[in-house]
């Protein structure tokens, strides 16, 4: 395991945390409403409210119900899932640079989901999250086994995860080229982390696992706090540390994999959301996890909305925007991590 001790930032008062959660929830709702209104056809807020609550007055049922509402719901689900996944991974392997993307889970999930789509084009949607989970688990298992047997620095572990991601991405590129015909553009867009063309069918296959796994993650938050105290202390307090680590990593991997199956590779969300949440409420996971989930929702909904607002009718993938913001963020985290390690 990494040498970096992940010092929990001083926990702040619960009241403050609750107020913050309420404020973030309001922000998420506002961002979601805004994302419903922007795009190739701008829709005024009044019309959206009318449509959603079937009030009298002007409505825009087709676009909202068929196109924008399902993708907004998916953005919320995926944002929360990636954020929780990142928060758990960072806490369990005690590495502030870790995230589902960095340790290769996202690419692994994408490769397996893509193989499924290309080999069995007619397979029902339901199998996609399953294939993605197998891919995500493969990548995570590899990185974890390496980390288990060798004493690696935080940065070296992140580097190995990145390399695992490269291997899977090379496979993804090859498959995309091999299937280079009319249907190749669809997986291409999906893989860059886009919510384009997502329908209620995607919501139907993913909401139950995502909600259930998120609930499990929130329920396990106190164990993350115990693990943060260090292995010896946590064991002394009665926690079976190896087993809990495995369970938590399993939940984190499945959360990220299912979200990849429906929204593609959305890099850096799982990295940014937990860091932002830690800044806001401190390191106590009971508060930090829900805040991270809300921040993740906010980031993905905003990325999706901004992607549609930049140059309509062209859509910029939310994943591209996430990478453009996330890469500098990652470098900032990396610079601060190393200087901690030096001192």
């Amino acid at each position, binding site marked *: 395991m990494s040498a970096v001790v992940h010092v929990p930032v001083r926990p702040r008062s619960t009241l403050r945390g609750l107020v913050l959660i309420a404020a973030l929830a309001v922000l998420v709702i506002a961002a979601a409403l805004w994302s419903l209104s922007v795009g190739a056809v701008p829709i005024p807020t009044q019309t959206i409210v009318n449509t959603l609550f079937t009030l009298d007055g002007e409505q825009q049922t087709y676009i909202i119900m068929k196109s924008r509402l399902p993708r907004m719901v998916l953005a919320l689900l995926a944002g929360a899932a990636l954020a929780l996944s990142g928060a758990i991974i960072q806490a369990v392997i005690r590495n502030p640079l870790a995230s589902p993307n960095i340790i290769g889970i996202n690419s692994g999930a994408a490769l397996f989901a893509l193989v499924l789509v290309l080999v069995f084009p007619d397979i029902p949607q339901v199998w996609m999250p399953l294939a993605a989970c197998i891919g995500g688990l493969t990548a995570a298992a590899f990185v974890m086994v390496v980390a288990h047997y060798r004493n690696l620095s935080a*940065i070296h572990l*992140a*580097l190995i995860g*990145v*390399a695992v991601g*490269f291997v899977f991405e090379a496979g993804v590129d090859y498959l*995309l080229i091999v299937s280079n015909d009319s249907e190749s553009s669809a997986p291409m867009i999906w893989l860059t982390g886009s919510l384009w063309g997502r329908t209620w069918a995607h919501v139907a296959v993913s909401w139950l696992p995502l909600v259930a796994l998120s609930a499990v993650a929130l329920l396990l938050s106190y164990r993350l706090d115990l693990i943060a105290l260090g292995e010896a202390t946590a064991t002394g307090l009665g926690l079976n540390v190896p087993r809990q680590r495995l369970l938590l990593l399993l939940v984190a991997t499945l959360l990220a994999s299912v979200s990849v199956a429906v929204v593609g590779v959305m890099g850096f969300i799982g990295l940014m959301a937990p860091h932002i949440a830690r800044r806001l409420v401190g390191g106590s996971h009971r508060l930090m996890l829900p805040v991270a989930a809300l921040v993740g929702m906010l980031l993905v909904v905003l990325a999706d909305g901004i992607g549609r607002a930049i140059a309509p009718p062209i859509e910029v993938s939310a994943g591209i925007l996430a*990478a453009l913001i996330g890469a*500098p963020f990652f470098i900032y985290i990396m610079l601060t991590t190393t200087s901690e390690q030096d001192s």
Partner: protein
Amino acid sequence: MPLAIRFALLAAAVLIAALLSLIIGQRSDVGIGNVLQLLFVDDGSLARSAVVDLRLPRTLIAGLIGINLGLAGLALQAVTRNPLASESVLGINQGAALGVALALVFPALMIGNLDTMAIIGAVVAGAVTFGIAAGLGGRLDSMRLILAGVTVGAFSFAFVRFTFTLEDNLSRLVLSWTSADISAARFDQALPLLFWAAGGLTISTFMAHSFNILALGDGASQGLGVDPRRMRFIGAMLAAVLTGASVAAAGPVMFVGLVIPHLCRLWFGSNHRLLVPAVALGGAGLVLFADVVSKLVRFPYETPLGVICALIGAPYFLYATLRARHMA
């Protein structure tokens, strides 16, 4: 094995790969028997035109970008003393791609021609990576250098995708270009590469002695009259220029600069006077071999070169990161 024989074997491998790259294709009238005749005797046949006008430029480009990328990787590994360093891992490749993408999508930004834009992109990306790695502390932390480079690369590639998304007419090209499809290569792309490769080989040969001294460490090389900071600057600039020229001609080909210096070090030792010619030959050989594979793997369809190189190089990068335990 004597050195001369090792070089001869490597050169023979390059020649065979080049010939295979010329022979393999969809025509049944070009084979081992007549390819040399078609190449040198103008009989006005369609087979001659296919070999000389279509396949030869592509073979040349494959060999030349192999030389350029191999030498770029060697220079970077020498000046950083980091076995994982190479143009694609340090984000230089992707920076060059960003320079080209910006020039294609926003013609107003174009400075000079596409080569210049690719080189500018490569230099900027390299400067950012080295800047981050030197970071707050001032010394070049090896793991941080690699991770910074990978992130700069990810950022540049996201930006490439972003610019291509904005330009609807180009978005269809993005897949073939970012995967370095050289099947449509022509002579006018190959000739500038020849110039860059010759320059790169000359400069690397002159620098080989300094690379050897630099391997002794910063302090020792300073004592021996080689300024490490100046060498780092020159080496990184050389790598950026060679990479930029290659990317402008063929698109980003990943991992060649990482794999080839490693393999050559296994076979030729760590003396850079031998490594420079060996890496040039090996780089040409690897990319020519990848070109042959790219024609064969789904015959009669072609698979872009970049995809083949990534399939070979990414697992090697993983292997190298696992092995890199205590880096300088």
